[in-house]
């Protein structure tokens, strides 16, 4: 009797809500993949096909080679990876300083970091454009890397400071008593414990750069330098939309994010929970 009740409880509190939520989040992805696998004529045909009757990969081939998704993909990867590396280095070090040291104006500094997040991105477009034009960096990946880094560092620094505060200072001190330098203690003791936080921050930054559209469009004047979101949106014309290629492009753009999450999932949960035990 008891176990039956428990089963019903589990069904009501776990499986049904979970199933509903899953179908809610997975349906758009299923529909995108479904559309990407249909030949063009079938996409808008009625009755709707819930599974492609003539599955084809032509949309993927078209998006990858004809539209230039191979290039967009490469550009997005370069910008994403470079940004993540710089952001991680800067935010780990500054986060460490913020959580471990007390200095004059620390609160004011934290407040300033937060304030930078209130500036709408659209406001920065023209000033940024002029700055990068004067630097000769328009259409150069560096312009995006610099901008994304600057936009991300304040938030990731605060995030990192939180993670580092969770690592007990005593561990470091113990390591230093055993003969480590400050940096060695950081590297051998704090760093491994901080891994979940670093992964979370890295994934967060990467997803931002991967999806960012506005700045990428504005700071790039050459097609060969477009990133994925810009490439995707250039497939939606005023008068015609190639749904198949658009869906295929979206699936291609999804892949790295999915792989990244699959790999980082464990760390992510730890990281966000901040569950670093001393």
């Amino acid at each position, binding site marked *: 009797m008891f176990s039956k009740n428990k089963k019903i409880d589990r069904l009501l509190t776990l499986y049904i809500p979970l199933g509903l939520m899953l179908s809610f989040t997975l349906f758009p992805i299923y529909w995108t993949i479904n559309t990407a696998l249909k030949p063009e004529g079938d996409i*808008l045909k009625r009755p709707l096909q819930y599974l492609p009757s003539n599955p084809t990969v032509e949309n993927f081939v078209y998006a990858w080679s*004809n539209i230039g998704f191979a290039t967009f993909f490469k550009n997005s990867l370069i910008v994403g990876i*470079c940004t993540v590396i710089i952001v991680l*280095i800067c935010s780990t070090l500054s986060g460490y300083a913020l959580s471990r040291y007390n200095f004059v104006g620390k609160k004011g500094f934290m407040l300033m970091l937060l304030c930078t997040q209130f500036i709408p991105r659209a406001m920065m477009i023209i000033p940024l454009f002029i700055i990068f034009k004067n630097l000769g960096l328009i259409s150069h990946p*560096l312009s995006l890397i610099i901008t994304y880094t600057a936009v991300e560092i304040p938030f990731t620094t605060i995030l990192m400071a939180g993670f580092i505060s969770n690592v007990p200072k005593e561990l470091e001190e113990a390591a230093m008593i055993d003969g480590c330098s400050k940096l060695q203690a950081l590297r051998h003791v704090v760093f491994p414990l901080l891994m979940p936080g670093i992964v979370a921050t890295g994934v967060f930054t990467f997803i931002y750069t991967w999806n960012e559209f506005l700045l990428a469009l504005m700071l790039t004047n050459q*097609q060969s330098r477009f990133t994925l979101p810009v490439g995707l949106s*250039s497939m939606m014309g005023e008068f015609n939309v190639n749904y198949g290629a658009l869906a295929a492009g979206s699936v291609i753009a999804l892949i790295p994010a999915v792989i990244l999450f699959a790999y980082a999932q464990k760390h992510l949960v730890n990281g966000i929970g901040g569950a670093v035990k001393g």
Partner: protein
Amino acid sequence: MFMKRGKYKSSILAFSIVSGLLLAGCNGDDEKPSASTDSNSNSDEPVTITFWDENASPERTPLWEEIIKQFEDANPNIDVEYVVIPNKSAKSKYDAAIAANDTPDVGSVQTTWLPEFSIREALMPLDEYFDGSELKDKINASAIEFNKKITQDGKLYGIPYAQNLDTIWIRTDWFEEAGVKEPETFDEFFTAIEKMTDKDNGRYGYTIRGGAGGSFQLQRLMFAYSGLDYFGEDGKVNINDPKHVEFVEKYLSYYEEFTPKSDITNGYKEMIAGFDTGVVAMVHHNVGSYGEHKKSLEEGTFKTIPLPKTEDGKYVAEGGNAVNIAVFNSTEHPDAAWKFAEFVNSAEAQSLWNESTGQIPTNTDVLDDEWVQNAQHIKVAFEVYENPETKLYEPPFYLPDYRSILDNLVDPGIQQVMSGQKSAKDFLDEWATAIEESKEKYDQTFNK
């Protein structure tokens, strides 16, 4: 201690080397983004000009590439660098480029942008080039006149290479099946919407564009209904004329009753998809969407008809419904840029472009082409444009905030009327006030 410090230094060194290498890795070919900087004194010197396409899509890009290839073959010393700009963000991209003075040499620009861009001195006047070109007698004179009229100094800043006309696409097979007459007047139009609605079978008579771009659709229908000018003789805007109030009340009251519920957020894509997937019998768009319909509907099951006539039997069309080639002031190769603009407007290029995009050529030489004769939608457009009775009204494109009034006030206003939060009269009054205020500011600035 010393050792440790050495390690510390080497770590920093390693960091900088790694990040340096990574940055260098991003540092591919380093060519300048826009026009090459060499001077243009010698016309034989190879030059590169940039061209921005303001309405990129997988169907249009190959056409531009073909035209550019033909141009480069004919002018081996000029290289054209083609850049696609997604339609939705095209205006802001141009805005940023103009603000930073980093514009392309040549660009495709919509007529509505010409007044603002010329006030901002971003565009080069083309009058001299045009007058000296063989295009002078070939490009549709009224379109050229229109472009001059809307700029504050009366100069020609863009050559229209494709025109468009708002029409109604209808499912001829459904109309035949139901025995309903194709609407020619507004009364017939409203009757057809009612009769073609069959909710049990998931069919609606019409679809209203309630989302982005809905303002354009509504404005064109309102003036087609009333046959009024945009401004009355006393200089007052006619937007909130009682005829328009009457029309908007009736038209938007059809929402949900005879049109799909999702109409309230309908943009172009959703609206056209509704027609192409067989949900609605009629959709108001323009001849440009022919290619989309052809992809999903069978030949002979759809066609286009002009917007209904006014009570006194006249067609009304909005002037300036065209895309133009414009040369930007910042170009260092004005001659090469003009050559490209001229080439895009040649009969050959216009024919290729307009046949594939389903738009109306402005070069009269193209009109004799076989495809023009065989294309029902193009013929309808000609019928309207060539009818001496057709009334062209002129919206005030020259008002710098004309477009933002439509996007930020009228689009949401339509949704409010559709959802019953606002009356048609209040909505049109607000719209009229915004246009009037903007016009007053403009007139003061230019001492009109």
